């Protein structure tokens, strides 16, 4: 295999094109009230249909590029969230959906809640709302796709790497 830096431009372009146009997403609920989860699921249903954008939900972290995470990260879920993230192959991205995933939402300050996914994982896209409408979720995912399109392979590797 060639070094990443030495790959020809056409190969990088093909990879980016494939990455952007067929996102495999996995969803994990870190303790949310389900509102964001049902709006995410709603995005799959015929009215919004994110499959036409190439975004499909997968069952296993090993098959996924993007982690859609909701919820304020309860203490019990934190460890599982990190494990799921670690099981995803590179390059990988995280999208935090909903007010709870951004800051803890109404549960900010509770003894059992870490409050915000970006406290334990690097997040690439934040989608606010309580819950965000499916349109907002699609908008956030499209922003992520735009970011992927523009990024150089080196940037992509950095963006998705774990610290």
């Amino acid at each position, binding site marked *: 295999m060639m070094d990443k830096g030495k790959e020809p431009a056409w190969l990088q372009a093909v990879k980016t094109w494939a990455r952007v146009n067929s996102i495999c997403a996995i969803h994990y609920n870190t303790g949310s009230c389900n509102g964001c989860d049902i709006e995410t699921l709603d995005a799959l249903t015929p009215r919004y249909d994110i499959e036409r954008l190439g975004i499909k939900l997968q069952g296993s972290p090993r098959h996924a590029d993007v982690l859609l995470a909701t919820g304020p990260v*309860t*203490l*019990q879920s934190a*460890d599982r969230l990190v494990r799921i993230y670690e099981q995803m192959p590179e390059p990988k991205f995280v999208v935090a959906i909903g007010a709870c995933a951004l800051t803890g939402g109404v549960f*900010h*300050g*509770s*003894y*059992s809640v870490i409050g915000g996914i970006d406290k334990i994982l690097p997040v690439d896209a934040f989608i606010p709302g309580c819950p965000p409408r499916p349109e907002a979720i699609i908008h956030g995912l499209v922003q992520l796709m735009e970011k992927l399109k523009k990024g150089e392979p080196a940037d992509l590797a950095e963006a998705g790497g774990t610290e």
Partner: protein
Amino acid sequence: MKENRLNLTESLEKAEALLSPWIGEFTRPDDHRLDAIVAAADLVPAVTALVEAHWGYLAAITGIDRPAERDEDGVPQGEDEIEAIYTFCWGPAIASLRVRVPYSNLMIPTVCDLIPSASFYERELMEMYGVVVENTPNPERLMLPDIWPEGVYPLRKSFKGLHEPNPRGS
């Protein structure tokens, strides 16, 4: 195949009649509610009486921290206690059995032999308040995370957060 239901007044009177051998004090906080103060030692016979007569179902076991009043120097004026309220519902009638146990002896007998579904409620009582429910079939944690430290009971008034004091004041 509707159950043979009594009307509200009759239901509450029946509950009083079933519970009277063990009850210290009855009150009616509302027209459809009956409150009964019962000692921990009498809890199981009282619950047995209700269950055998098919008086409703156990809706919840509510725990409440009742720390004693403190004077200006912080000296407690009585014993700190935990109250557990066993609430039974039958149609519109609600009967609550209130049990108080002091911090010095936080033991309540299990009712799981009579009501298996009480296990979840008892587990919550134990992990949130530190009450020991004797002979409960499953003493494992229900809600608190695996990493939660032993001996820390979040719903006690004295609990102010795991690390620093909570700026939101819980």
